[in-house]
């Protein structure tokens, strides 16, 4: 029986028919998706913090408005994704609980500090840029609600990337101090951005199964290479450099070669030892705990109103 279901399921996936919440699916598929979608949702929410940091310090009213809109978008992305995950039988509160206890992960990139205004540019350019690279294929992922959420997310991400690049472009045309600020930010964010694509393919145990289920369509290394190729060209427009002495066009491969990623740093940050892991998680926990009385009151009020309505009917 179970085997038949499994066969029908895989057959649907192979024929590019979307899996919907009510369809039968292997338990492992469900668990993989819950893990991946909730991790993605958490990344959007935690990702609000390093940029949110600069809203009150944005250097012009126009930049302030753009940044506010951008960070607000990220909250919206979190919302779509939590909703998509909820269709798999987990509640938002349960997902928060997993985040707050450290059971669920989020993208490690947000554990790095934002030290200057140029970081807003680099985050848009590189971090949202890497996110787009990762997420565009997810618009065709096999699970319907996830794919549809990603279509909405991707539409907004391209604006995020453009505004980031534009911040850097203006800095590149600016004063010497501004150019230094921008180059410094690129130097700090480049390697962590490359880590956003995850471990190397031969050390990424979930990849094969995820590809078979069409949750994933390209491997980590494929996407990372594509990202390097794009950024190596874009950085020339800015007149800045990427901090990698091994970065070189390889005629034969038709790709840029690039240096070795510091995987030790990657795993350290994943394990909680990044520069801002504690701050980020503490900020979320604080918001959650200090918001408890607000949520209780909203619930109590809604119940009261519902009862009054019932009594009146």
């Amino acid at each position, binding site marked *: 029986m179970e085997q038949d279901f499994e066969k029908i399921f895989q057959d649907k996936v192979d024929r590019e028919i979307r899996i919907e919440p009510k369809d039968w699916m292997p338990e492992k598929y469900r668990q993989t998706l819950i893990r991946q979608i909730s991790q993605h949702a958490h990344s959007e*929410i935690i990702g*609000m*913090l390093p940029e*949110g940091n600069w*809203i*009150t*310090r*944005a*250097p*012009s*009213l*126009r*930049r*302030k*408005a753009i940044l*506010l*809109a951008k*960070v*607000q978008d990220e*909250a*919206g992305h*979190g*919302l779509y994704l*939590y909703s998509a995950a909820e269709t798999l039988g987990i509640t*938002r509160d349960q997902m928060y609980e997993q985040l707050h206890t450290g059971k669920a992960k989020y993208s490690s990139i947000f554990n790095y500090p934002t030290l200057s*205004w140029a970081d807003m540019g680099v985050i848009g350019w590189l971090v949202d840029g890497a996110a787009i690279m990762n997420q565009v294929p997810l618009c065709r992922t096999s699970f319907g609600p996830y794919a549809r959420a990603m279509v909405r997310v991707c539409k907004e991400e391209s604006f995020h990337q453009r505004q980031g690049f534009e*911040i850097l472009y*203006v800095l590149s*045309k*600016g*004063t010497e*101090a*501004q150019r230094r600020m921008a180059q410094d930010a690129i130097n700090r964010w480049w390697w962590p951005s490359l880590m956003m694509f995850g471990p190397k393919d031969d050390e990424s145990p979930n990849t094969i199964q995820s590809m078979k289920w069409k949750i994933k369509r390209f491997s980590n290394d494929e996407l990372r290479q594509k990202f390097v190729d794009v950024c190596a060209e874009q950085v020339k427009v800015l007149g800045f450099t990427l901090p990698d002495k091994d970065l070189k066009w390889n005629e034969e491969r038709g790709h840029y070669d690039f240096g070795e990623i510091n995987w030790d740093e990657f795993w350290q940050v994943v394990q909680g030892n990044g520069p801002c892991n504690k701050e980020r998680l503490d*900020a979320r926990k*604080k*918001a*959650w705990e*200090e*918001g*408890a*009385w*607000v*949520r*209780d*009151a*909203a619930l*109590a*009020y809604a119940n*009261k109103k519902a009862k009054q309505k019932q009594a009146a009917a």
Partner: protein
Amino acid sequence: MATAKNEIDFLLHLADNALIIGHRNSEWCGHGPILEQDIAITNIALDYIGQARNLYQHAAELINQHADKIELTQTGKDISLPVTEDSLAYLRDVVEFKNLLITEIPNGDWAQTTLRLFLLSQFQLELFTQLLKHEDAQVAAIAEKSIKEISYHVKWSQDWVLRLGDGTEESKRRMQQAIDAIWAYTGEMFIQPEYATATCLNYAAIQTAWNQKVTAIFEEAGLLIPAKTFVQKGGATGMHTEHLGYILAEMQYLQRAYPNSEW
């Protein structure tokens, strides 16, 4: 030029109100108690920054037109001509800001934040409705656009006053505490600044309408208006609380640290 000067000061007063309340609300971004509400308050902050921009831009236009006759700053530090929305927001100092004190006091908890917005936006709604009849068509146009947003701010914040006032014991206590803390800053809204000389303005009418609406909502929520309080005032003429200096230090830091730069 008395009229132009008055109109400029009045525009700066409105713009500063919008900027500072926008700043305060934006401090919640990423830290709200409920994700949907985090989005809502960030959106409200964004609305206010947008309003501030419209108002500063118009003030800048008028200042640049009448530059020869107007003293730009009280602190003697030059803002170079032509002025822009950004030089007005980022290069004036505390005593030159004309925002109401109620906009600059700290957020406190969710009760204080939503209550402050309710009391302020209700006032702004009445004020901007009068400005629809302003003789300067551009002021009227800005008012019209702002009213759409402010009406939503009123609705959103009013719902929170009701919800918290009539929610749990704790939320009621916190909302009542917020009222007691903020009430002294409400009176300033109804003191007509000397530069608010436009003929469409009637502050007494604003106060009457505001009183009615606020009283009705408080009654529905079971909240009490403090019997009597002293009125804290001065913001509209540059006499601020100590909080504004910290807001500006943070907000203006890049413009001050890297002068004459494009961003």
